[in-house]
């Protein structure tokens, strides 16, 4: 029997971050926006006793039909790395599917990152989420730009609808702070423009 590795038609995404940085939140946000676009979604962090700063992993499955599989994701289409410093400690490219991509929060050019990952042959996308976040929000909240980059690269949902949905979601979430909505929307769009692909 031939072993297949992934649920039919699913787009599978793995997130790497550190506890407290918002990788889990970004993962759940992606589930939210994909849900809003009519998809079936799963968003689930891998849980242990980790505390702030420890490497954490979270997963998304996004499908047109209900997702049945309840295992972790070993062969993701996309991997999003919210914290560049994880490159030295976590095998972030492990199992990435042919045709997939690594999406990383970094000031470096994708080629420079490729030098750090000699074994990895797939696509690398880099976006300076920290810079974008500092420029637009005045604080380092990398998860919004990283979410936008993931949507841009993965095409998992329609981008214009994504922007509309996020705006609505931010307006709801920050109804008492409209300036935050604007900053977040800027961060989102900037990230989609600036993400570099190699």
């Amino acid at each position: 029997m031939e072993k297949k590795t992934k649920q039919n038609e699913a787009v599978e995404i793995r997130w790497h971050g550190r506890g407290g940085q918002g990788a889990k939140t970004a993962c759940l946000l992606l589930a939210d926006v994909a849900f809003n676009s009519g998809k079936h979604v799963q968003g689930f962090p891998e849980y242990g006793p980790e505390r702030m700063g420890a490497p954490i992993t979270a997963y998304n499955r996004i499908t047109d039909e209900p997702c049945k599989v309840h295992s972790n994701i070993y062969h993701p289409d996309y991997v999003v790395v919210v914290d560049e410093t994880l490159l030295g400690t976590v095998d972030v490219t492990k199992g990435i599917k042919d045709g997939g991509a690594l999406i990383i929060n970094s000031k470096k050019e994708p080629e420079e990152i490729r030098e750090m990952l000699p074994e990895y042959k797939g696509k690398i996308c880099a976006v300076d989420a920290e810079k974008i976040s500092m420029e637009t929000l005045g604080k380092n909240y990398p998860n919004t730009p990283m979410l936008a980059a993931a949507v841009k690269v993965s095409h998992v949902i329609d981008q214009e609808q994504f922007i509309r949905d996020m705006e609505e979601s931010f307006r709801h979430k920050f109804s008492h702070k409209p300036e935050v909505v604007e900053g977040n929307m800027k961060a989102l769009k900037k990230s989609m423009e600036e993400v570099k692909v190699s």
Partner: protein
Amino acid sequence: MAIRDRMSGNEAIAMAMKQINPDVMGAFPITPSTEIPQYFSEYIANGLVDTDFVAVESEHSAMSVCMGASAAGARAVTATSSAGLALMWELLYVAASSRLPITMAVVNRALTGPININNDHSDSMGARDSGWLQMYAETNQEAYDNFIQGILISEACRLPIMICQDGFITSHGVSNIELIEDEKVREFVGEYQPENYLLKHENPLAVGPYGTSPYYMEIKRQQAQAMKDAMPVIRDVAEKFEEMTGRSYGFFEEYRMDDAEVALVVIGSSAGTGKEAVDRLRAEGKKVGLIKLRVFRPFPRIPLAEAMCKVKAVAIMDKAESFSNSGGPLFNEARNSLYDLEDKPYAVNYIYGLGGRDITVEDFYDIYQDLFVIYDNDDPGDVYRYIGVRDSRFL
């Protein structure tokens, strides 16, 4: 119109509780069920429910509060996991023998030894002889649907019920769900109207006697009957639920069992992963099926045996050890149920997924492969097996 939404299994249970609007909730936090009382506390803080939430100092007291409230005539709910369920142990038996309806969300987690916060079924499986009804969910949707049905089943049977789902896998995994409108849920669960209760105006009630030997066994026999009588109640409530939602529930679900040659029996979220393996194997022309057990107490002995008898070899999956040296709890009961049948399949046991060990579609492929070997060779081999464990003999 059903409400399309997405949420975690814990949020789904809290939502069901909110819609049910129980009288009393007694709860103490324990991973991974903690979010349930947290969400519920927010509903209380915002005046969305009428419930008296008793934030107790232990799970032992959580169950005590539920027993007191239930005996008093109130609808009582709680949620727990693992060591929390273990701390309630003594009281589980008391609640069941006093025939107090209580609906408890159990977010399954491994029991300590060593400490581990991840999923397996050792907590609720350990409580399988406590006299509680037990239902298990594959998805957040099923956890939500089971909880709403559980209220009615528990009250109609006068037995407490555990509504189980897999810790983290569904409890913290966000996915799509169809919610029922609040008013429909309230109409479905109705008002709790016990015949006798502590606060009744017409007569007092005394609960929890000393049962001397001349009475104890009769009381237990009656309790056993209640478990037996729960079978039609569970069926009737499921029918009523299907009328409301279109979603149908039985004691178990048969997945692609028609013409299947081999099958597996599994509980909880892993059933979904198993179904994916079935789909792919079916696409390759292999005749495989799957049975997902929803109701473990009462154990649907006869219908389950009949379903298993459709195939030649069956793998019975246990996400709990029972250290019996003869397989896990589900295996022993499921295999036992085959005993009286003439044309029975080979039945083997797989212990899997302990303490959060992941089980993948590939693992299920391997199990089906094993089943075909058993079928082809007409020999079950060792029936007590592990899958997903590192074993030096196989390196």
